[in-house]
């Protein structure tokens, strides 16, 4: 390669990479760095003066009962959504891959629909479902027991509302994870199941001794997805549906961050929350990966 050809090569490489690198630097790298930097400052927003206060924001945070509540809510949602969605998605995926009958394709198409809807749409749909007087849920429940279901406040009751949010998140997520598990299960060779049923193993036993161990790697990967997407989607859903209310009972990590920063203009404090959530999601994913490590079965 002579000097000229070498130069055109580097010019091509530079031109191809530069726009992507510039955009990533402006809209991702710089904002991420400023999250960490701002978390060390006291900054009330409209005033230009930022005061460096070290880790004082984090100290305040550890005593902020509203933040601790948002943390409890987030953890509760992560646990509920992960356990219920995982169980349902695994069972439905196993059924749809294992049992051969008419309409399998149609069920698969239907179960995936919630995943393509905007969170704003899902929040509006569930507001209609949970409406105490004209809502779909209460009107169905009234069929079973007329008086005791009169006007249950699915979104107004402080004890109940977090479970209403969890149900909407699960409704949204089942199809997505089901399709994920289905593609992992489709690669399990059929003769494993055949020899198992010849040995008299029940469907349930086959599920636990063949299906689960052979999809373990996919299940592990999706655990990280559950953590990350529950943190994000609970924020989007809560902001659109309950606004964190009533009385902070559905406040989650990122909705509290957004409120502190955008509504309260406590930017430094808000970004300190962002840092904690960031570290939390990484740590939780790492812990989950470590404790679910098994010897991978081969087939």
């Amino acid at each position, binding site marked *: 390669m002579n000097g000229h050809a070498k130069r055109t090569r580097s010019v091509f490489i530079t031109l191809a990479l530069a*726009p992507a690198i510039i955009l990533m630097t402006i*809209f991702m790298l*710089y904002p991420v760095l400023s999250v960490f930097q701002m978390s060390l400052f006291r900054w009330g927003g409209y005033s230009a003066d930022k005061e460096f206060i070290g880790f004082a924001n984090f100290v305040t945070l550890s005593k902020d009962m509203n933040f601790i509540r948002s943390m409890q809510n987030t953890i509760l949602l992560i646990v509920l959504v992960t356990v219920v969605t995982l169980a349902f998605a695994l069972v439905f995926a196993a059924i749809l891959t294992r049992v051969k009958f008419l309409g399998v394709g149609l069920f698969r198409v239907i179960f*995936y629909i919630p995943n393509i*809807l*905007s969170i704003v749409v899902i929040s509006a749909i569930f507001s209609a479902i949970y409406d105490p007087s004209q*809502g779909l849920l209460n009107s169905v429940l009234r069929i079973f027991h007329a008086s005791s279901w009169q006007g249950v406040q699915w979104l107004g009751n402080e004890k109940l509302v977090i479970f209403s949010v969890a149900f909407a998140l699960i409704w949204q997520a089942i199809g997505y994870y089901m399709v994920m598990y289905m593609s992992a299960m489709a690669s399990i060779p059929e003769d494993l199941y055949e020899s198992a049923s010849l040995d008299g193993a029940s469907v349930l036993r086959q599920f636990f001794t063949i299906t689960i161990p052979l999809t373990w790697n996919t299940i592990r990967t999706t655990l990280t997805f559950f953590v990350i997407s529950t943190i994000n989607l609970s924020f989007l859903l809560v902001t659109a549906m309950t606004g964190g209310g009533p009385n902070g009972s559905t406040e989650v990590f990122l909705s509290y961050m957004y409120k502190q*920063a955008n509504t309260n203009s406590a930017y430094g404090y808000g970004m300190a929350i962002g840092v904690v959530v960031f570290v939390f999601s990484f740590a939780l994913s790492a812990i989950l990966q470590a404790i679910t490590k098994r010897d991978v079965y081969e087939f």
Partner: protein
Amino acid sequence: MTDTKSKGTKLYKLFVYFVLIALAIVIVVPIAWVFLASVKGNAEFYGNPWSWPKSFHWENFTSAWTTAGMGRYLGNSVFVTALSLVLLIIIALPASYVLARFRFFGQKFWNGFFMLGLFINANYIVVPIFLMLLDGDTKLQQLIGHPFFMNNLWVLSLVYASTALPFTIYLLSNYFRTLPASFEEAAYIDGAGYFTTFMKVMAPMARPSIITVILFNFLSFWNEYIMALTLIPGDNKTLPVGLLNLSAAQKSAQNYGQLYAGLVIVMLPTLILYIMVQKQLTKGMTVGGVKG
């Protein structure tokens, strides 16, 4: 023996059908209900929610379209989604190609740079992006007398495209890595330069991956609301933000028909797209990516 067994499997199948249909109902009924509700008159919302619409109130749609501004918001959403997709492909395609198929100084570093981006979710950086654009506008105000960055659909599209870059580059460069080197060698022998080889030979070959990228990002750009809500506080809203306003307004105005008509306007494009390409979407999904 065989008799009881076949009876058992029959029962099992029946049970399985029952469970599948139950879940399908839980998913389909609320969505179908919204479609029915969108043509109901306002008075009908105070009775039984399961009643069939007495007559078709198509005026719900015209009022959502014009009075609530959903028509204009739809235009904005189409513009932002299309522009973001074009920007994303134009920027990500050459970068992925070079990262996958060239050896050069700093290649490992830039690969790692884009991979790290996979861990950054847009929700974490809404606030700093907002502050950055606000700051830029204050400076522009002093310099040229009017703001530019906030309330700008072009800037919003650029933000969308940028935050989608890491995953798109990951997907496309993985695809480019699977192609044999003989294609480029043949092109070079025919006298084609780097640029021609990329445009005429390699980019067209990436079509299946490009389609996957477009499908996923169409959905995420079309449905996105927190960035649009923060960066477009003015009138130029996108569809999901418009819907958010509509459902907030509905709580006091009790204009249910208009709200559900608005919901249908937001849902319909994604549902139509999904029905057309559902096979490709669920197949492409398994290559990775986490929603939100």
